């Protein structure tokens, strides 16, 4: 009887045994053990720009631990968006504007690498280096992150510093040309551990983009609540991330309700669920 009681309290206190990812946008420093495999399904919903805009981004990710400190992952991504478009047709000296909803879909492939340098409990600060390359028909993106995290009591604090050069194909003067854009981002995530299954917290993102031609295009701040649920080999994370402030926009654009809605959405939500194989 005594051992049953001890086992019961042990199970109550200890976390479930799945990859301990608590946040959806902000990455933690932990990596899978050598040989461990995990599959993750990502769903990100984007809503609202200056005009009608909706997009949904799906990713299927397969992660595998290569060594005790290194993991890699492969993603297959599908991005589908619908947006408001106005075309101007010239008939002699008359200009006729016609509006329509434009629909686009794109497929891409990503490969990520994460190297853990220190642990958020055993060391002063947990840290990891992260790199991901994404290739699609129209662009190539390289995303690099410095990940820092720290567990303090029942709370987890995570900071990501992100730099992302992007090479996009655009039509200029009737020719397809490569334009370089550069995004940099600072993310902060906080999670409070309620019990063995549930964590709640907030995530904050400061997103900035520059181009080689125009300099800084915009700077925005997203922030919102999230939760994480873990049960055995399964976990699910969700964050709702409204844009809370437009901090900067290029001269030709204006803020709408204090938000930058030319290149960014009013709201993003992300749901990730995952299963780890033994």
């Amino acid at each position, binding site marked *: 009887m005594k051992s049953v009681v001890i086992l019961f309290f042990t199970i109550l206190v*200890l976390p479930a045994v799945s*990859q301990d990812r608590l946040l959806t946008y902000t990455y933690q420093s932990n990596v899978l*053990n050598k040989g461990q495999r995990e599959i993750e399904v990502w769903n990100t919903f984007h809503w609202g720009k200056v005009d009608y805009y909706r997009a949904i981004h799906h990713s299927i990710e397969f992660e595998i631990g290569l060594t005790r400190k290194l993991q890699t992952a492969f993603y297959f991504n599908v991005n589908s968006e619908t947006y408001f478009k106005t075309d101007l047709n010239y008939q002699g000296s008359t200009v006729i504007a016609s509006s329509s909803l434009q629909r686009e879909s794109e497929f891409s492939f990503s490969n990520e690498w994460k190297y853990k340098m220190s*642990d958020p*409990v055993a060391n002063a600060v947990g840290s990891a280096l992260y790199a991901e390359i994404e290739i699609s028909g129209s662009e190539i993106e390289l995303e690099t992150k410095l990940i820092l995290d720290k*567990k303090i009591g029942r709370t987890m*604090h995570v900071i990501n510093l992100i730099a992302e050069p992007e090479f996009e194909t655009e039509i200029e003067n009737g020719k397809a040309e490569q334009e370089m854009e550069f995004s940099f981002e600072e993310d902060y995530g906080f999670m409070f551990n309620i019990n063995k299954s549930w964590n709640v917290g907030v995530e904050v993102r400061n997103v900035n983009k520059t181009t080689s031609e125009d300099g800084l295009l915009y700077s925005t701040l997203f922030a919102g609540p999230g939760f994480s649920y873990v049960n055995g080999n399964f976990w699910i994370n969700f964050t709702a991330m409204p844009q809370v402030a437009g901090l900067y926009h290029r001269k030709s654009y204006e803020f709408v309700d204090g938000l930058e809605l030319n290149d960014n959405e009013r709201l993003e939500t992300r749901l990730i669920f995952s299963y780890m194989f033994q």
Partner: protein
Amino acid sequence: MIRKLYFLICLTFICSCGSALYIPKEPSVIYNASLEELQMGRKHYVDYCSSCHALYKPSDLSATGWTNAVEEMAERSHINNEQKELILKYLWTASAAAN
């Protein structure tokens, strides 16, 4: 405002820096473990257990509690019997030192 927010976050990080995990400095007579075994047990605990969850402080459980927990998780974390024994010696010693 934004700069102040990030300053506060960074300050939180800096103020909280320091290992929260017991570092063995002498052998354990009670659990018949040398200093090298305890150090190796700590290393295995950090390497193998932190991939599935943020590490828990040894003081969170009693020796019996740790035995049950490690037994339950040994297969999932892909550790062999020797590594399991070293982890347990470390956790028992650290738990006793804290309590």
